[in-house]
Structure formats: C-alpha cells, structure tokens
C-alpha cells in the first residue's frame, strides 16, 4: 500500500551550513510520527517543508504519491486543505483583527463558496467536540487564553477534513494541565478521522505518550526509532 506521506532524502541549507540533511521516512494514514530535536535543530523548518510551506534544497516529499515541489502553485493550492499545521504560538496563529468565527469558517467558506454563517452551523458539532462554547467565537483572539485558541485552531484545521496534520510544538507555550487537555483532544479527533500526524516536540515524555515511532534530529544524522528504542535513548540522554 502506498504511504500517505513519504519523505526522501530531504535536505535544506541556508547558505551557511545545513539545517538538516538526508531525512527520509514515511507516514501511513492514522499513524503518529514524532520529530524530536532540541531548539535550533531545524525541526520546525522540516515541518513546514513537509507540507510545502517552505522550499527544500534537495529531496522529495511525496503526498499520496505526488511530489509537492514539482506541482504548480495552483495545483498545490488544491492539495493544501488535506495537509494542515498546528502552530507553536497560539496568540499568533489566528488573525488578530478577525473574530474567531470568521477565522474558523474562512477556509471552508472560500473553498465551497458558502456563506460563513452556514459553515459555522455545520461546525457546531466539531466545536462541541473540542469543548468550547459557541458564543466564545464572537471574541477576538486577544480576549482568549492560549488553550482556547489552540482548540479553535483545531476546529479550523479539522473543518478541512485533512489527511495529515503537522503539529509544531502545539503546547510548548501552554500550561501543563492545558497541554494534557489539548493532547487528549488531538488523540480523539485523530482516531475518529483516521488522520496521520507528524508531531514535533522537544519533550521526550510527550513524544513517548503521543507517538508510534520517532525521528531524531540532533545534528548528526536523521534516524527513526520505535517507541521502545526511544525510551532507551532518552534514558541515556538524561544521564
């Protein structure tokens, strides 16, 4: 069976030295892959490259067998809704001058040429599923907490019924108890929709709790590990 996403020998450099090089792995539908690395190891850049938000220096990213970097801008845009990203800074991931309901309904309203109010009605079950009150959506992002925005972000992302989600440290700016809530939600939604997820983090315990197998970016070379191998790796790391 063809994997959902397959990454082949991906490299990126900014003129001065490599950000990462020779990264290869595959992601199947419903699977969660972790990308573990310390700050500055290029894991966020890699995440953006995986869904074609940033160009790579060499290598291929095949999404359902289609190479993202050979597609025209127009064709890539058609493909984009299937690949979504959850960002690190919740206070920056919603347009500060738009009410939450407008931000959340915008992509679907554009793609399906429907009225935002209709789209919003369709999203109500999803909003309930992430545990938000619908009246909260008349607020602007700066009136809400990070956890609430990250939940709303999940509504926005899942409204596009994506096949792949890149989660770039979605909780590193949030409190511990909120982190647990968000991860619980992510797992539930992922299971329900059979979504694949690439999970980027620097916290090894989060990795162990969330991922099936883990790729390590530590400047030496990229390698994939199963959860058990990773547990041993972490044990060595913390000595």
């Amino acid at each position, binding site marked *: 069976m063809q994997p959902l996403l397959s990454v082949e020998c991906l490299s990126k450099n900014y003129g001065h030295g490599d950000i990462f090089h020779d990264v290869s792995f595959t992601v199947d539908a419903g699977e969660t892959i972790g990308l573990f690395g310390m700050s500055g190891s290029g894991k966020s850049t890699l995440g*953006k490259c995986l*869904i074609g*938000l940033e160009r790579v220096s060499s290598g291929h990213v095949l999404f359902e067998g289609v190479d993202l970097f050979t597609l025209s801008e127009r064709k890539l*845009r*058609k*493909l*984009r*809704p299937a*690949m*979504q*990203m959850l*960002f*690190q*800074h919740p206070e*920056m*991931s*919603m*347009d*500060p*001058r*738009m009410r939450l309901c407008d*931000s959340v309904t*915008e*992509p679907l309203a*554009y*793609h399906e040429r429907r009225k935002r109010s209709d789209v919003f009605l369709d999203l109500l079950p999803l909003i309930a599923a992430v545990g938000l009150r619908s009246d909260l959506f008349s607020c602007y992002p*700066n009136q809400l907490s990070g956890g609430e925005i990250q939940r709303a*972000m999940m509504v*926005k992302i899942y409204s*596009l019924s994506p096949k792949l989600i890149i989660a770039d440290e979605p909780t590193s700016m949030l409190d511990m108890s909120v982190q647990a809530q968000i991860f619980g939600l992510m797992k539930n939604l992922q299971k329900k929709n059979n979504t694949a997820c690439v999970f980027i983090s620097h916290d090894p315990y989060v990795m162990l709790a969330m991922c099936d197998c883990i790729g390590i970016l530590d400047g030496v070379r990229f390698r994939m590990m199963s959860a058990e191998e990773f547990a041993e790796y972490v044990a060595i790391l913390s000595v």
Partner: protein
Amino acid sequence: MIELGIETWINFWKSNVCETDWYYRLRQRPDLQIVFVLLVVVLSVSIFAPIISPHDPAVQDLYGKNQWMSADHWFGTDYLGRDLFSRVVCGLQTSMTIAVTTIATTFVIGTMIGSYAGYKGGWVDNVISRVIDVFLAFPSIILALALVTFLDSGILNMILMLVIAQWASFARLMRGQVLVEKNAEYILSACAAGLPGWWILIKHLIPNCIMSVVVLATLELGHVILTISTLSFLGLGLSPSIPEWGSMINAGLDSMRTAPLNVVVPGLSITTVALLFNLAGEGIRDIIDPGTDAEGSLWTF
C-alpha cells in the same frame, strides 16, 4: 418612532463602541479628547467655510485696509481691505481640500504598491523598493519645485505634485509592515488552508498593517498643509486670488511692520492646524496601540 430610533442608536453605540479598548483608552486621556474635539471643529469650519465667513473673502475695501481687530472685522483687514477672518476660514477650506484629497490618493496608491511589493518579495520587491528609494532621496519640497516648472499652478496640479512627492513614504512604511507581518503564523495558516495569495493580501495582511499607515496619514496631513503654504509663500502655489494661508503671508510680508496681522493671523493658523493634526496622529497611535496606557500623555510635558 423617533424615540425608538434614538434608543436603537444608543444601544448600538453602547454595545459596539463603549466596549472597545480604544474607547476605554480614549476616556482615560482628556488631553486627546480635547484634541479630537478641536479637530472636529476645524473640519466643520473647513466644510462650512462659506457659511461661517461673515464677509466675502475677495471683496476689497481700499479705504478700510490694514485695520486692527474690531467687532466687524474680527481679525482685522489685510492690505487690500479684505476681511482676514473670512480669508483665513476660506483658506482653511482650500488647504483642507487639497490636503485631504492628496492624502487619500497617496494612501491608496502607497498602500497598494507597498503591500504588493512586501508580499511578492523577490525581484518585484527589489524594483519597487529602488523606485521608492529614488523618490525618497529628494526632499519633497525640491521635488515639488522641480515639478512646478512643468505644470501650471492650480489646485489639481498642486494635488498631483504633492501625491508624487508623498506616495513613497507611505509605500515604504506599508512594505515594512507587510514584511514583518507576512511571516506570522496566521498567514502561514491561511496559506496552508489553500487560500490564494490575493485573498491573503487583502483579507489578512492589509487589515493588519494598515493602522500604522493611518497614523502616518494623519501626521502627513499636517505636513501637506505646511507644504502647500510653503509653495504658495514661494509664489509657486496657487494664484493670489484664491485665499490660501501661504500666499497670504507672502503678500502681507511687505506691510509686516505697519500691519502685523496680515502675517500673524495666517501664520498662527498654519501652526495651530499642523500641530493639531500631529497631535491627533500621535493620539490615534496611542489609542490603537495597547502598549501605551496613559503614559506619554500631554500632561506629562
């Protein structure tokens, strides 16, 4: 019916304006409230100038020239016996018409060019940036002087001249703002959702970058009024028959010793209005920017 209408209006005001942050910050700044009230006064004076002015600004009275202030002529009369108050009021209308049209045109042109350059990047940005640099390299008054030699004097040409001299600073500010905002995560998120570039530019980037340009526009409004007066003072602006502050000072210079009001009245008007617009510009910036809470208020001077 009318009562209902007023009530609806009050409710609308309460729910949509009183709840906003800028209204709250404005309430804490009595100095800015005064500035904005004065601004409204200036704007209404300029709109209703023909009604307000007690005399025809063009009617000469050579027997009653260079009069001091009196009940009939509040600011006295000029060297041709024309009523100075009426001339100042009508001059305000001329200046405001030119300034507002200029700023509105520049605002639209500058915002469009600047945001496009910032969003596109690459060679498009390079070319536009260099053009902006060229325009900014000339002081606007020199640029205007150079253009005067090609164009006749007149209100439309004056506006054209000022637009050419001003648009670059708007475009540069807009470009800078877009460059900062373009890498924000909500833009990436919109891009990842498959929204096209023009949509992101119009719906997300421009609304988020526009406020600093609005502030610049208010500041530049005062600047434009000054430039108009400067050009008229140099004899390059409007024809002397149109009441305008700069040309009033220019014409009054000869009799400054004997009739100081000829120069002082339009001079003070220019200063006041330019100052008012600058204060208003900074005030708007303080009010929309959540970072400044009651600090930097005028009272701390």
